[in-house]
Each structure stands twice: as C-alpha cells, then as structure tokens.
C-alpha cells in the first residue's frame, strides 16, 4: 500500500508528489478541470475533472481520439471557452503562480500573448488572409514588445529565418495563400515566437501535414524548446508523434484522463485497457499479415457526470463494479509518475478492496467539488 497514493491525494491533486519530489513548482498545474457545454437536450461534460502538471522545459503529450476532450482542454487553458461552454467552479488552472480561472478578459489577453502561445491544427485559421505574413508578425511584435518600423521588420525577418523559412525577406511581403501548408505552420510559430512565450500549446500542429514536413516541424519545435526553454503541451491523436516528442503522456477518453505515465513506460507497459487497445489498433506494431485488434463500439458522449467507468461498455476485461463506480487515478508503478484510472488497480488487492478504494476516492472527489460548488 505504501507505493499507492492514498485516496485523499486524488481528491486534492495540487498537493501531489511532483512538487514535493522535485522541490520545484510546475509551470502549469491543472486540477479538477471541468469544462461543460450546455445544449438544448443535454449537458456535455467535454472535460470532466482532469488533473495534470507541466514542469518547466518539458513536453507533456495529450493523446486521445476525436471527442475525447483534448482540444477543449487546450482551449480551457487558453481561456477560450465561450457560451454555451463553461468552466465549472472548482476548476483550477495555475500558471506560473497565478490562478488563470480568476483572470479577467484583459488579464487573460496579456497572458495569451507573452505567457502562453498556441499553435493549432489549421494554420489557415491563425493567419489573416488579407494581410501579408510580415504584417502579422510585425503586429505581434508591436503589441507584445513595442517594436515598430525597421527594427520590427528586421526582427520579423530573423524570426522567419529562425523557423527555417528560406528567402525570408521576400516571404515577408507575401500573403498566407502563397505559403505551402508546412510553411504556413512555420509562419504561425514565428508569429508566436514574436510574443516570446514560455509556454506553448500545440493542438495537432502536424496533423494536416505530410510526413516529411511533419518531421521538419517536430524538429523545429524541439530546437526551439532547447533554445528558449519552452514548456509544451502537445495534443495529438497520433501515438507515433507522441512517442517522438513527449516526455510524459496523458491518455484521454471521453473527457477523462485514463492513464498518465512517462512516455517510455506508457509504451512499454500500458496499464489501462483503453491504452492497450489503442496501441494494438495501430498498424505496424502488429506483425504483417496479422489482423489488427479493434476496440468494439464507439467513443461515448459524456453527457452525464461519471457514475461508472466510461470505457466499461467497450472494455474486454470489465466486471460488475465497473458499471457502478467511477474509477479514480491510482499509482500503478513504483514512484508516482504512472497512474491509471481503472478498477483493475491497485494491483494485488482483491476485487472488493479495489472497488472500495475507488468508491472512497470518488466520494472524496465529489465532496471536494460540492464544497467549491463545482457540481451543477
């Protein structure tokens, strides 16, 4: 029992091991984040009580299928959730010692530029088609660093060169449509660097790109991270990309983080049945000629608070209790870096003990939310 986290640690993740172990506060600490969307018919718990940290200089991956809530997580951190969406009370996003959920619109605007930058899947959306690329980078420089005129122009050229755009001076006067897809993504990254952020959220930045271009962008991000000491949240559905770029990984399913682990451990020894299924469904990990394993059924829409395990209906190893108890994260390896939210753990306990463990932890979490008024 010594290596397993006690139930109360799950209820109050801001007090978990990372800080104590490293003596350093994480740059970003998300705890009990709940983002819901109200529709006429139902309430969608798009992100339903997730906890994770990002330390300085590290890359944390968030991986999951469509509808798992990974992009909503990114938008929540960026403060971009608008009606009919809402972050529930009790959600906490601490960035560099500040509580972002309490920020006003103006305060958030300041953080968005120079604190946290975002690269989205479709660079077309981040660029204005009627201004030249140079114009947009220089605007970012003026707003964030107060630069203008010739110095701003020179800095913009340097930034484009920093993201390896050839013939930067000419490119500056071109419009986004004259750039190729990979080049546009570089331009967006250059624009973000103009704000000099310490934190970067990359939401599927390479999904729309060809592999050779994807390799270029991943290499660029790694170089920039080394150079500027950036912390990165990297969101993707591609397990290969995650393996390549992340230090630690969060696996999301239907609004929840079902497994959290350092990247090597996750791939070598996945604990949650969903993670296992996901890895087995990737072509190339199985022998050629062998059939791919598939996960039966579809990802459910989380339209009610979790009263059970959301993966249970598709889970090959589910048992009765999975239908009644919402699983809570428990440590599954020595150390506290690897957790899984599954009633199969803690290992070595009887089914009844495990069920009781999760029931108690879920009760704690619910009480914690009730106190902060989080349960709608």
């Amino acid at each position: 029992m010594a290596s397993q986290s006690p139930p109360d640690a799950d209820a109050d993740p801001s007090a978990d091991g990372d800080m104590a172990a490293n003596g350093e506060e994480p740059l970003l600490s998300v705890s009990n984040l709940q983002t819901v969307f109200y529709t006429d018919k139902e309430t969608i718990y798009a992100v339903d009580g997730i906890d994770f940290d990002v330390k300085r200089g590290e890359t944390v991956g968030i991986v999951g299928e469509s509808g798992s809530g990974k992009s909503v997580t990114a938008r929540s951190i960026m403060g971009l959730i608008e009606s009919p969406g809402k972050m529930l009370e009790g959600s906490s996003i601490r960035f560099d010692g500040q509580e972002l959920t309490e920020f006003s619109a103006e305060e958030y605007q300041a953080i968005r530029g120079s604190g946290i930058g975002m690269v989205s899947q479709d660079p077309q959306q981040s660029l204005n088609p009627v201004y030249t690329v140079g114009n947009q980078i220089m605007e970012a420089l003026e707003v964030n660093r107060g630069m203008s005129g010739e110095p701003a122009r020179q800095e913009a050229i340097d930034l484009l060169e920093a993201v390896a755009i050839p013939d930067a001076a000419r490119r500056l006067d071109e419009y986004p449509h004259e750039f190729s897809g990979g080049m546009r993504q570089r331009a967006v990254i250059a624009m973000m660097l103009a704000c000099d952020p310490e934190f970067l959220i990359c939401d599927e930045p390479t999904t729309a790109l060809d592999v050779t271009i994807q390799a270029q962008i991943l290499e660029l991000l790694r170089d920039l991270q080394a150079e500027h000491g950036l912390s990165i949240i990297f969101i993707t559905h591609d397990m290969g990309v995650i393996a390549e770029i992340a230090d630690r990984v969060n696996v999301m399913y239907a609004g929840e983080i079902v497994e959290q682990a350092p990247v090597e451990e996750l791939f070598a020894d996945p604990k949650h049945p969903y993670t296992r299924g996901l890895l087995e469904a990737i072509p190339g990990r199985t022998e050629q000629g062998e059939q791919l394993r598939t996960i039966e059924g579809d990802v459910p829409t989380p339209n009610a608070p979790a009263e059970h395990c959301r993966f249970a209906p598709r889970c090959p190893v589910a048992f009765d209790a999975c239908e009644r108890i919402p699983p809570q994260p428990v440590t599954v390896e020595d150390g506290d870096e690897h957790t899984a939210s599954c009633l199969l753990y803690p290992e070595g306990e009887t089914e009844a003990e495990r069920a009781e463990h999760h029931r108690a932890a879920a009760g704690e979490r619910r009480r914690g939310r009730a106190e902060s008024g989080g349960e709608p």
Partner: protein
Amino acid sequence: MSKVTERTQTEGGRETLVSVENLKKYYGGEGMFADPPVKAVDDVSFEIRRGETFGLVGESGSGKSTLGRTLVQLERATEGRVLFDGRDVTTLSGDELKQWRRNAQMVFQDPESSLNDRMTIGEIIMEPLSAHGWKTKQDRRERALELLSEVGLQEEHYYRYPHQFSGGQRQRIGIARALALEPEFVVLDEPVSALDVSVQAKIITLLEDLQAEFDLTYLFIAHDLSVIRHICDRVAVMYLGKIMELGETGELFESPANPYTQSLLSAIPRPDPTADRQRITLPGTPPSPRDPPVGCQFSTRCPAKIYPEEYDDLSDDVWDAIERFREVVRERSRQELGLVDQARLRLGLFSKYDDIDEAVADLFGGLDAPEAVTDAIESAREQVKAGNPDAAREALFDEFNGICDRERPVLQGVSDSGQQSYCHRHAPEYEPPETVLQRRSDDE
C-alpha cells in the same frame, strides 16, 4: 459475382489484372500561349495482379490520387494505356465504358463529402444499381439490404440519412456503394485517412474480410505508411508524378533502395519512444509540378544527390547552402513582375529584388566556401538584383549541375524479386544510396 469467381478459379490467383503502360496525365498546357502543363502523372508503368492489394503511397501532390482516378477512367489519360484483363480501357467510350465501369469502382477519402446528404442510405447504395439498370426495384432493395449487412451495418439504417452516421459508418456506406455492382477491382483513395485509429482498424479489417470473400483486387492509395505496410502486398512510392520505387511490401520496408523511400520511412514517427534511429529530415518542400526539375524529380531535396566531380571536396554544409540558394532563385524566377516593376526594370531603377542579399547572408554567413563557389553565388546575386532571376538560375545550373540535375534516371531492378528503384546511384559507377546516406548522416 459468379462470373468473376469462375475465372479466378480457373486461371489462378496471381496473373495480371491491370497493366499500366507509360501512363501520363497532364493538366492544362494546351494551346500556343499556355503555361507549361502540370504533369500530375508523368510516364508511369506497373502491373496490378489479380487478388492482390497494390499500395500507392506518396505525399500530397505526388499524383497518387490522379493516378487512381485515371485507372478507373474518372480522368482521361493524356497518353499511355491501361490494360484491364488485356483490354485497353483508355479508348473506351459511351456504352462500352459504362459497361466496363461495373468492374472498376472507387471508395473516396472523405466520407463527409462523398455521400449525398439528401439521399437515404438505401438510395445511396442502390444508385449505382439503378444507373446500370440492374434487375428489378425489389431486387435492388434486397441487394442494398444485403450489402448493409456485408459492411457491418443494420437493416434499420436503410432509411436513415448520412448525417446520422459517424465517420467510420459513412465510410462503410461508401464501401457498400462501391461493391454494389460486384466489381473485380476497387480503387480505395485514402479510405481511412480521416478516421481515428480504433475506427481505422475496424475499416481495414472490413476491407480485408471483403477482399477474401469476394476475390477483390485493390489499389490502396494512402499517405500513411504504416497502414500501407499492414494491408498491401506490393507498393509503389510516388513523388512528383513519378514512381520512385516499387516492390514487395516487406522487402521495400525492410530494405528500401531509393533515397526518397529511405527518407520517407525515416520520417514516420514510430509508436516506440525507445527506438533509436537515424532520421533523414528532407529540406524544403516538393517543387512545383508546373516547373519540375529537368533531371531526377527528387534532385532538389535528395540527401544522396550526386555532385559534379570538380566540386568533390565541398563540405555538405556548403552544398546544402548552394542547393537552398538555388531553390530561392528558382522560386524568384517563377514570380511574375507587375507593370510598375517592369517599367522600372526598363529604366534601370529596379530594386524589388534587393532583398536577395538577406537570403545570401542567411545561407552563406559563417560558411567557409571556396572562391569558385562564392564567385558563382556572387554573380547570381547580381543577376537577381538586376531583375533577371532566370539568367541567375541558368548560370547556377551550369556551374553546379551533376547527373541528377541533368538527366532523368530510369526505373531499374534492384533485387531478384522485382524491386525497382528510380535513381542514378544504382548505376555501377556511383556509390550506392545507402552508403552515401550513412556517411553523410555520420558526418553531422
């Protein structure tokens, strides 16, 4: 279906079904003053055997979709032949073509846009049957219901509309429609690219099952190499309208011969964080298909390019800078000048291209290049500034061209089992690609 099954049984499973001979598909370029054509598919030849899954892989713009569409006659070939069971189908028209089309169907990439939102699923699946006057209405209905269950959907889905289905289910509907007329040959154009992994795995499994059940021959187009590796028997790798390499899937993935295939394979992110390997990151982007290189299509980005002998001693860094500079000049030569700039050019007041200095400084700053190189770069820079990037481009070509810049390679056999590769380095007088790539990446 009965006719098809009989034939495959009597003739055995592995003879040629589709034979593509010197196929070309160009867009535009007609008329005296037209721009040069876009060579989407530029002289490719290969065979697809009965009952196999033949993969076509390449980056966007490589011409793989155009090739697929040309095979089923959705596009008219500019030149060359497509023999289907020995019959040239590029010359078919009218009723003959319609009749033949029953045999060759297509599944499209985007299940969102390839189904008509105003038709029910039943109508969608029955449409090809009605178009070909297949039996009676009652028979068509029964056939549609049967197809629904073949692709893993339920009878009750018959009356629903496409928007009520998920991406994976829509793709199943597209597959049912393609199979309605019992074709022998199906072109699958990126059928799983828009789907999540777990859904993708289901569709791949379905396609495999259907192939076994109905003796289908697939042309499977994808950009995802791991999917290709899983499902295909043989693969062709395309780049800028040309087949760079072709061979048995296992062999091609285990021992790729062509520098492009090697770069492409090394670029796939592997779902294994402990994998330790040499990544070849290709510089730049593929060139414009309107203005392809004179020599090998891949020569502008090739990491194993053959350099001219007189520059044998140049470092890789200098070569890299030269190639990037040539790319910059090429880009500029493609630009058209506005009227004002043309007037300034005449009057000797032209200054639009002065910013080329910046590019030269960026590329060659800090590099120790020999005088012959700096002279050539210097004169090219002057020509660009004078508003004449075309001349600069030609001068650079004359100075730095090697065989890869000058001549097209040929697709040649590189193994006993029929693996073929399109690269000058397979000629005996040159060092083979693997050793060059190994050496150049070790130097870094």
